[in-house]
């Protein structure tokens, strides 16, 4: 079941020639449904209704890691035997469930019908269902759909699919509108506000964020919109934005002091911000970030790190670990490598960094053990077993669940990696 091919080395773009190891074995990653865990926090008037199985419901509650403290804004319409028997009935059932849900939650403005593996396999057409229900409930509640199924999406690709579904709902920018900036990809509110202030300082006044916190706040998009990706996994979203006429800026991700500066620089260049103004606005933050990062450098410098595939943020994070923390990259795994969006990142990776795409978890574990890294970045299913073997680990899920982007979070990001090592040093049991 394992096909691993060495594909042609990518063109040298500032870094040395290295090949990408492509694996097609067992993947130890979440499916796209998991994105709901952070999307529903971000989009405060949206509800995510997974049309799936008990497994899907169990995945989301397990990945969320916590029990529910209040009635959550996500749920699963669990399909039962009779739903599989006839699609008409399944559609009727879905209508019934949605009606009940909307009656129960008058605060909801946007309802996502989220497809799962079972709904995809039985070919339950959620796009049509969403259109039908939208016809009934709009304008009070908009109904959209996307798939977070594990046969089509890996972990963060669920966010990509959700955002791509929202793009058509964004208002059209007025013809002849002045250039605007759109930041795509979920950021913690606090990070979003920091960036807003920085763009403000740069004199880029018209800045929108996708997703917006509320449906009514969706920013307009049009041919004058320049898009800056705040997350690396937005393949379909970027395409949908381009279809609306927007153009993509090429930049590394705003991870670490360097990444944040380069990311902001891409916007500054596009909006003709003077070099001096850029310096004035970013210097303080950049210096703070560098100081914060430097505090942890000693703990990480020269250490060897192995990253398992998880969220696609592995490459930006590896770039940060190598360039700002002085770590040595043994292997950088990613579930999917989007060369276009990551071109600026790949150019910054140190020569010889081994990248793997996809996964064959047992083989990867073999490679990892052989390499005896100082630190492994991996998912929750692998972390404790590796720790028990004596290997220090950092849970990759934190790179998604905690704010790491921007100057003010660079130190926190460094600390995430320094902590497991510091802990080992302190423990004498």
């Amino acid at each position: 079941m394992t096909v691993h091919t060495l594909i042609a080395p990518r063109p040298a773009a500032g870094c040395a020639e290295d090949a990408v190891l492509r694996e097609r074995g067992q993947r130890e990653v979440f499916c796209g449904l998991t994105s709901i865990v952070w999307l529903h926090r971000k989009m405060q008037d949206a509800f995510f209704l997974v049309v799936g199985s008990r497994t899907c419901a169990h995945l989301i509650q397990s990945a969320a890691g916590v029990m529910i403290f209040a009635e959550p804004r996500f749920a699963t319409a669990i399909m039962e035997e009779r739903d599989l028997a006839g699609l008409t009935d399944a559609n009727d059932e879905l209508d019934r469930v949605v009606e009940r849900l909307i009656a129960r939650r008058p605060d909801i403005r946007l309802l996502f019908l989220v497809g799962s593996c079972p709904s995809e396999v039985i070919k339950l057409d959620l796009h049509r269902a969403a259109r039908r229900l939208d016809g009934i409930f709009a304008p009070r509640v908009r109904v959209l759909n996307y798939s977070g199924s594990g046969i089509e999406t890996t972990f963060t690709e669920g966010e990509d699919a959700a955002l791509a579904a929202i793009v058509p709902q964004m208002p059209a920018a007025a013809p002849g509108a002045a250039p605007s900036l759109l930041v795509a990809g979920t950021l913690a509110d606090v990070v979003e506000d920091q960036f807003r202030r920085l763009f403000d300082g740069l004199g880029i006044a018209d800045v929108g964020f996708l997703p917006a916190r509320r449906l009514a706040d969706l920013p307009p998009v049009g041919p004058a919109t320049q898009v800056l990706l705040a997350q690396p996994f937005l393949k379909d979203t970027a395409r949908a934005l381009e279809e609306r006429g927007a153009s993509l800026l090429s930049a590394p991700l705003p991870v670490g002091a360097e990444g944040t500066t380069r990311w902001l620089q891409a916007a500054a260049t596009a909006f003709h911000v003077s070099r001096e103004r850029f310096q004035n606005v970013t210097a303080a933050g950049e210096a703070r970030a560098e100081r914060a990062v430097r505090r942890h450098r000693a703990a990480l410098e020269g250490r060897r790190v192995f990253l398992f595939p998880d969220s696609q943020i592995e490459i930006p994070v590896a770039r940060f670990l190598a360039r700002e923390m002085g770590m040595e990259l043994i292997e950088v795994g990613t579930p999917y490598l989007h060369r276009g969006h990551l071109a600026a990142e790949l150019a910054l990776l140190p020569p010889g960094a081994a990248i793997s795409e996809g996964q064959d978890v047992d083989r990867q574990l073999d490679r990892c053990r052989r390499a005896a890294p100082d630190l492994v970045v991996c998912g929750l299913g692998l972390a404790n077993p590796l720790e028990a073997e004596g290997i220090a680990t950092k849970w990759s899920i934190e790179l998604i669940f905690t704010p790491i982007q921007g100057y003010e979070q660079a130190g926190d990001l460094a600390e995430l990696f320094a902590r497991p090592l510091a802990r080992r040093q302190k423990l004498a049991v």
Partner: protein
Amino acid sequence: MQLTLWTYEGPPHVGAMRIATAMEGLHYVLHAPQGDTYADLLFTMIERRDRRPPVTYTTFQARDLGGDTAGLFQDACRAAYERFRPEAMIVGASCTAELIQDDPGGLATTLGLPIPVIALELPAYQKKENWGASETFYRLVRGLARPRAGDHVRGPRPTCNILGPTALGFRHRDDLLEIRRLLETIGVTVNVVAPLGARPSDIARLGEADFNVVLYPEIAEAAARYLEKAFGQPAVRTVPIGVGATRDFIAEVARVAGLPPLTAEAGSRLPWYSRSVDSTYLTGKRVFIFADGPHAVAAARVATTELAFDLVGIGTYSREFAREVRAVAAEHGIEALITDDYLEVEDQIAALRPELILGTQMERHIAKRLGIPCAVISAPVHVQDFPARQSPQMGFEGANVLFDTWVHPLMMGLEEHLLHMFRDDFEFNDRSGSHLGKAPAPAAPAAAVAAEPEPAAPSVVPATTRWDAGAENELRKIPFFVRGKARRNTERFALERGIATITLDTLYDAKAHFGR
């Protein structure tokens, strides 16, 4: 379609994983998409297991669907056998693979692996986790257990198997240690414990024991019934949770094992603790129970006969045990709640206003919201349910643990008296409370005294009901830890009688009405 915000049980293949992960030398090849690998973290994170569950997932993708998912499954089986060299293999499908109908059992058999391969049919759209665990264990026992060689000759010491403990079980690790010790003490030798810690070759030896002990019927009843029928092994079915049940358990073991009647109560403290005067205040505390079937039934007995609580509500999410739980409810003149919708459970708790909830982690959250003391007695499990210390629920030590964990959330008795005595003291204001800090959070609507923390409890009064100054003043004299209850009861009383303004009289009428 069932609208589900949160679920008490996972899908049936997670039950199968609990069996596979509990055992050694068994491997599970699961035809499933990548997202289903989340289940690994249940074991590695919640239970803090130091090894990955012995599960290979095929992680087929959409692009495989048109092609050869069956071949993918066979490759996965072969690779898993080569890598892990298990003694036996179980194979099956998760919800998605069930729909593509690849027949994992048939596919695995045609590979001709030199080990037993057991096919699991776990209908994902009908059944749930515990059923899946039970079915898997039953299939393993059916497939692997051999009858004892030769005639049944009783040895000098009777022997038994302990059936039921799994990975990710609520206190299974600790219960097992306790019950094992108890059995050894009363002169019974344990032949095999399964599935926890057993190898397939141990399952093969089940037939050698004189009888079986079914610790967790939700897991092991089906297997025990098979062993009873196939090998004539009787089963001990009393679930030894609580002092009375543990005594019954010992008596049943003695009867089945042909031992003289015995007692083995060294270290049993619950009976005396419960009779000591400090426990007087526990009398008649109104308790609500929600758990898996066997734990709910057992908790009802302990709560009512060993702690003298009143059972005001009981329910379970295990439909398989609806009958047993309904029978207990009937004994107490109440109706059982059989549901897996936690919102229904929450509604019932809010309506019953118990003084103590014995439930799952979900009820713990509900309890927190409503400001009601709570102890956790059942799966679904949380990382807190795997404490570092020994903390069994079963046996006499288990009963000691129950006493501690159920009573501590309540205000301690003597302390309650002191608080009453000093309630008018200026120092005894709303901020200072029990030094234990265990006072249940008072629940009161916004009109309450300013110093009171604002809890997240729903008020039962419509905005039209108000308190007059005298009643409000009097309410303030009531110790803060019971004030919330007094307020709620009074408001409920007023609401039921259509009283718009609560006066001193209403307050005391309500007190008389609710007082025992």
